[in-house]
C-alpha cells in the first residue's frame, strides 16, 4: 500500500503561471493537456515511445527551450508554452516542414484531418519563409491497400515506430540521410506486410492513406456509425464512414475498449463486400446446371430433403457443417446444436482461423 501511495507522488509546477499538481513521471506535454493547454506535436503519439523528432512541441523551461513530449515534470518547474520566443521557433520549424511539402491540400485525401494543415492554419503560414527545393518522388508502390505519397511525409517516424513497437512487424524504416532521408520498406521494394494499416492511422499527414478512400468523400461529409467488426471473435470497435448509404472507409476510435483504435487488414480495409453487387441476397437452387432464385421455403425444403437422403444412404458422419465466424456466438451455438442433435454428427467447425 505504502508503495502504491509513493507511486502516486505528485509534483507541483507552473505552466503559463497556472499552478498544477501532476503525478511524477508525466511529460510536460501530458501535464499541459490535463489543464487544457494545447501544445502542438507532430511526432508524438500515445501508443509509441517518444522520439522528440519534430521539434514542434518545444516549450520554455526556466528559460531554456526543450521538447515537452520528452521532458518529465519536475518540482518547481516554470514552463511557458506560448512566449513570443517559443512561438517563433515553433512557427519557423513548421515553416521549414511546409517548405518541403506539396501544396495540394485541395486534392489531398487528408484535408481537414491533417495535423500539418491544421498547424499551417493556426500559424497562418500561407507561403513558407524558407522556401526551396522540395523532394520529388515517384509513387511507385504497387501494393493493394496503402497509398504511400512520400512527398507528403514529414519524417515524424510515427509509422516506423507503430509498425515496430505496436504491431511488431518492422516493415518500414528510415533510409538514406540528409535531405533525402526517406521512410520505405527494405531496398525501396513495394510494401509487402500485413497491411494492418496502423501506420495509416498514425500518419499525421496525407503521406499514408487507404487506397480505396481516395476521392470517395471528405471526412466532414460522412455519417459515422459505430459498430462491432464482424470478421472474428475479437469484436473490435469500428466506425463506418457512410456517404450516400455507402461505406467508404472504416476506422476505429482510439478509446475503443477492445482494440484501442488498432485494426487488422480485414477490419480496416475489407469492407468492399458490403456493397458488392456479387453479394447473395436470396437463396439460389441449381436446376439443370444453373443457379436459379428460389424462396426461403423452397430452399429450406430442398436442403432438408437432401440432408435426410444422405444421412439415410451414408450415415450422419457423411455430413459436415461449416459455419462462419461472422455469425454471433448464439447463432454458432445453434448451428452446432443442429449438427449434433438434428443431423447427428460431431463434424462441425467454422472459419475463425484466419
Amino acid at each position, binding site marked *: 500500500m505504502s508503495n502504491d501511495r509513493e507511486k502516486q507522488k505528485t509534483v507541483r509546477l507552473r505552466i503559463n503561471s497556472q499552478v498544477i499538481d501532476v503525478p511524477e513521471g508525466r511529460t510536460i506535454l501530458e501535464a499541459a493537456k490535463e489543464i487544457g493547454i494545447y501544445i502542438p506535436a507532430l511526432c508524438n503519439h500515445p501508443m509509441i515511445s517518444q522520439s522528440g523528432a519534430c*521539434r514542434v512541441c518545444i516549450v520554455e523551461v526556466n528559460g531554456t527551450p526543450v521538447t515537452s513530449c520528452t521532458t518529465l515534470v519536475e518540482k518547481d518547474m516554470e514552463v511557458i508554452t506560448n512566449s513570443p520566443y517559443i512561438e517563433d521557433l515553433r512557427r519557423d520549424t513548421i515553416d*521549414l516542414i511546409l517548405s518541403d511539402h506539396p501544396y495540394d491540400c485541395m486534392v489531398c485525401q487528408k484535408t481537414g484531418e491533417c495535423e500539418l494543415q491544421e498547424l499551417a492554419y493556426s500559424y497562418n503560414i500561407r507561403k513558407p*519563409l524558407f522556401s526551396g527545393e522540395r523532394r520529388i518522388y515517384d509513387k511507385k508502390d504497387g501494393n493493394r491497400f496503402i497509398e504511400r505519397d512520400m512527398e507528403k511525409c514529414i519524417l515524424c517516424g510515427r509509422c516506423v515506430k507503430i509498425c515496430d513497437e505496436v504491431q511488431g512487424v518492422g516493415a518500414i524504416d528510415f533510409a538514406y540521410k540528409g535531405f533525402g532521408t526517406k521512410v520505405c520498406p527494405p531496398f525501396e521494394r513495394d510494401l509487402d506486410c500485413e497491411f494492418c494499416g496502423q501506420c495509416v492511422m498514425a500518419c499525421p499527414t496525407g503521406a499514408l492513406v487507404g487506397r480505396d478512400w481516395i476521392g470517395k468523400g471528405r471526412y466532414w461529409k460522412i455519417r459515422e456509425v459505430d459498430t462491432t467488426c464482424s470478421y472474428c471473435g475479437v469484436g473490435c470497435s469500428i466506425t463506418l464512414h457512410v456517404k450516400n448509404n455507402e461505406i467508404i472507409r472504416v476506422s476505429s476510435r482510439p478509446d475503443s475498449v477492445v482494440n484501442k483504435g488498432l485494426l487488422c487488414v480485414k477490419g480496416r480495409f475489407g469492407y468492399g463486400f458490403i456493397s458488392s453487387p456479387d453479394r447473395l441476397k436470396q437463396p439460389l437452387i441449381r436446376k439443370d446446371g444453373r443457379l436459379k432464385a428460389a424462396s426461403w421455403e423452397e430452399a429450406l425444403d430442398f436442403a432438408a430433403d437432401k440432408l435426410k437422403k444422405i444421412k439415410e444412404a451414408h450415415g450422419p458422419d457423411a455430413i459436415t457443417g461449416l459455419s462462419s465466424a461472422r455469425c454471433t456466438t448464439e447463432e454458432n451455438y445453434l448451428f452446432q446444436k443442429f449438427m449434433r442433435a438434428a443431423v447427428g454428427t460431431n463434424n462441425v467447425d467454422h472459419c475463425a482461423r484466419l
Partner: protein
Amino acid sequence: MIEQQTVTIKVCLGTAGRASGGADVLSIFQKLIQLNGIEAQIDKKCSYTKVGCRGFCSKDVLVDVIINDQKVTYQSVKPTMVEKIVTEHILKGEPVADWLTKEDYESFQTKQHKIVLGPCGEIDPESIDDYLGMKGYRAAEKAISKMRRDEVIKKVIQSGLRGRGGSGFSTGTKWEICKSQADSTKYIICNVGEVNRPLAEGNPHAIIEGLLIGGYAIGSEKGFIYIRERYHLSVERLRLAITQAKDKGFIGRNIFGTDFCFDIEFSFGTEAFICGEETALMESIEGKRAMPRVRPPFPVQKGLWGKPTVINNAETFSNIPLIIGKGARWFSSIGTKESTGTKVFTLSGKVKNVGLVEIPMGMPFRDIVYGIGGGMESGVALKAVQVGGPSGGLIPASMLDMGLDYENLSKLGSIVGSGGMVVFNEDDCIVSITKFFMEFLQRESCGKCPPCRIGTKRMLELLTKITEGRAEYNDLATLERLSGLMKTSSLCGLGRTASNPFITGLNHFRDEYLAHVREKKCPAGVCTALITFSIVEDRCKGCTLCKKVCPAGAVSGEVKKPHRIDAAACIKCGACFKACKFKAIKKQ
C-alpha cells in the same frame, strides 16, 4: 667491459608511411644489413622498429637512424635510397646530408608538446614489450590493485581533463555520475574517430589501458571500441594490442589479482559523421540506424541498452594512464587553468607544414600557424583559421593572439569538435568555404529533425544563391533567422553547430558577404559566377600562351598582338590567369 654499440633504425609505418612504401624501406634495410654482414663489420648490434605516425606525413617515409644515441632523421625515403644510407651512414659513419630532415621538420616537432603522441614515433605499436618498457600498464596496475574507484575518479577530476571531442565535459565528473548510478551493469565506450587514428596506429596500448582504468573506475566489466571498419590499420593494431593484453592478463578475469574483470569488444561503424554524436553512436552499437536520442536521460544515466554508459574518445583515454602514472598535478601544469593538458589537431590548409600536431591548451593560434605550421604557404596572407571540423567557427586573422582552449573556442563561436584545424588565406572565399562545409553537413544530417534536415538544405541553397550572385539582402536575414532556429531547436549537436561557420563568417567577414550580395563580386576571386577574365592590352605581349592553355577556345588573337577573351565562351577555369607571365590577365 665496454657496452656493445648499437644501431637502431626506426621506420614510420603509420597509414601515410605504409602508403609511401615504408614496409619496403624497412625490409630493404634488414636485407642489406644482414646480407652484407654489417653487424660484424661495424661490431654493432642492429635493431629495426616500425613506429607510428610522427605527424609530418608529407615527408614520409621518415626514417630515424640512431647510432649510439646519436639520432638523425631522413625524410622522403624511397627503397632505392636505402643502400646509400647503409653504406655511407651506417658503414662509414657519414650521414647523407641531402636527405636529412630540414629546419621545417625541426620547428614542426620542437614547438609541439607531445604527451599522447610522443610514443607514436618511438615505439613499435605491435609490441606490448615496447609499451611495457615505457612503464605501460603500470598505471592500470596501480589504479586497479592499489586505488579505490573513487580515488581514481578523484584524480581524473583533479587533473582537469575534459573530453577531447564534442563539448569538452569534465571526464572525471562524467565518470563520477556514471559510477553513482544504481544499475549494476554499466558500459564504457571508446570512440576512435578520424583524428584518433594515429593514436590507434602508433600507441594502441595507451588507449586500451585508459579504457581499462575507466572501466574499473565506473564499475563496468564491458568496454566497447567503436571504430569505422575501413580504418584497417587502426583496427588491426588495436586488435593485436587487445590479444597481447589478454595474454598478459591485463584484460580478462581477476585482473592484477583483484576481483575486477573486464572485457573489450569491437563495434564497427560505416561512413556516418553522425556517429560522432554519442547517442547516435550507441544506437549504432545496438544495431539500429544511427539517429541521436533526446537528452535527458543522458548516456551516463541511460545509455547503451538502457544502462549507464560512459563514452570518451581515444585521445581522452590515452591521457588517463599518464594522469594516473605521473599525477594530476603534472597534467594540470600543462595548458591553462580551465583547459588542462594538450590537444591533438590535424593542421591543414594554406600553411607550410601540414600534419598532425599536439599542442598544450592555451597556445595562441599565431604560434600554431607561424611556429609549428611554419607560416603561410606561398606568401599569401592569412585570412581565417577554422577549428573543429565542418561545424567549427571561422577565426579571423585579428584574433590569432587568443589562446586555443575550450573557453576561447566557445567565445569565438567554435568547438573542439573533430579536431580539425584548417588555415585559409586571402585567396579563399569565406562564402564558398561556408557553402562547402554546409554541403557536407547537409549530406551527413541523419534526417531526424526538421531544423537540421531541412534547415541545412535551405542554408545551402541560400549560400549557393550568394555565390552565384542571385542573392538579395533579405537572404542574409533569412540565413541569420535559420541559424538561430537550428542552434536552439535542433535535436543534437550536428544541427546545433551546423551554422557556426556562417555565423562567425558573417560576424567577421560581413563586407565579403555584402560584396557578393550587393555588388555581385567575389573579392577573393573564387566564385566563378561572379568573376570575369579579361586581357589588359597594354601588358599583353601576344605570346599566345593563354590561347594555348585555354581549354574552351575562348582566347583569340595573333602572335605579338594583344589577345582577347570571349566572355561568353570563357568557362572561368583560370588557366590563362595562371599561365600568363606578364600579369596581363585581369580577374575581377
